[in-house]
């Protein structure tokens, strides 16, 4: 599983960093930073929640590495 984060679309709401702090962070510019672009299966529920919470729809999941 790979997370694709579009920093051009991100508005820095920080919802992902709050929902799954071990996977997402906010960088110094306030936009999304991927701490773990390839999360474990165990992280999937919170990663999916983060994707759904993103108000700018800047996050996508892709199968495989």
């Amino acid at each position, binding site marked *: 599983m790979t997370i694709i984060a579009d920093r051009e679309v991100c508005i820095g709401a920080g919802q992902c960093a709050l929902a799954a702090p071990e996977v997402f962070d906010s960088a110094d510019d*306030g936009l999304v930073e991927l701490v773990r672009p390839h999360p474990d299966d165990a992280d999937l529920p919170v990663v999916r*929640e983060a994707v*759904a*919470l993103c*108000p700018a*729809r800047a996050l996508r999941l892709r199968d495989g590495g």
Partner: protein
Amino acid sequence: MTTSDLGTSPAQPFPVQRCPFDPPAEYAAMRGTAPIVPIRLPAGRTVWAVTRHAEAQRLLTDPRISTDTTREGFPTLTGEDSRERVADTHPGMFIDMDPPEHDVYRRMLISEFSVKRIRAMRPGIEKTAHELIDAMLAGDRPADLVADFGLALPSLVICQLLGVPYEDREVFQSRTRRMVELVDAPEAARAAVMEIHGYLDDLVTRAEAEPGDDLLGRLVRERRATGELRHDELVGMMFLLLVAGHETTANMIPVSVLTLLRHPEQLAALKDDPALWPGAVDELLRYQSVVDWAAFDRMAIADIPVGDRTIRAGDGVFVLGFSANRDERAFPEPDAFDIHRGARNHVAFGYGVHQCLGQNLARAELEIALRALFERIPDLRAAADIADLPFRYGAPIFGLAAFPVTW
């Protein structure tokens, strides 16, 4: 142009008064009928109300839905021409702009309100909250939780962040209240807007000459000096940040105290386990939805099918946040207040590119304010019957005019 579907069914008169702890009874009936239903605004125009959570999120992210108040025919509650209302105040007010224009301004501010930056502000917010509680405890009983704490805390925090002298608070606090309370008196509301605007015009002029170590000073040095921002744009941005930065949280804090006092078993759980506070704050935001539709009035700029109806280009669209946040399709037992719910997908801050820029500051302020208040004053209680409290039903942002409390 196809005739709008708006005329085909009877329209619910709008706005309707909340209960005060629950949405107007009409919302559940409207939500049961369809995801979009016609509502009739006071001046007679019929627009669409969006009643359900999924459609609220979908339409708030749809580029065919505009928030640009300079468009001809943009819906207003009073029927006034929105272009006249915003003629002198539109520059820099990016809440009333569509992408890509909107994004230019928002991107200048994202780092100022990031999760990281707000985390760093927490000790300062805590110190301010405790100082206000110290003053309350040293003062007379009953205290007014609105003036002494709920309004004071976010005002102090936003003043310090932006670089607005707190001793000037009377200028913006009273006029912001007038601005939101006078929804049916557009000329008086506009006068209040222009007074805050005039004050900020002077403040920005002073900062241009001598920028301080604050958000305004940083914008002057990094954006104004480089020619990226004009003076009037900077004034508009400051207006938006100052007004949105205090009035919303100022209403949330007292209403949240009341909700927690009405649910003593959940308040006791929070006192036992402070780790529950972040979840409680999101549940308070969902359950109370103090903004409801007030930041989510829009206009369609192309036809949009929704279920078996179609929003036509030019139709007004009001997203009812309070209805979406009580939608049984998104939240099981939506009318139950439950701090253990763990539902962060409410739309109390909106959704889409306009979702509240200050949402993480608001969350931090609410968590710190409520926790400190109940830790320092464990037997805090209302000093009046709840039925007698002066709820601000007429204001688009729901709150209390005063809230006498004792201990």
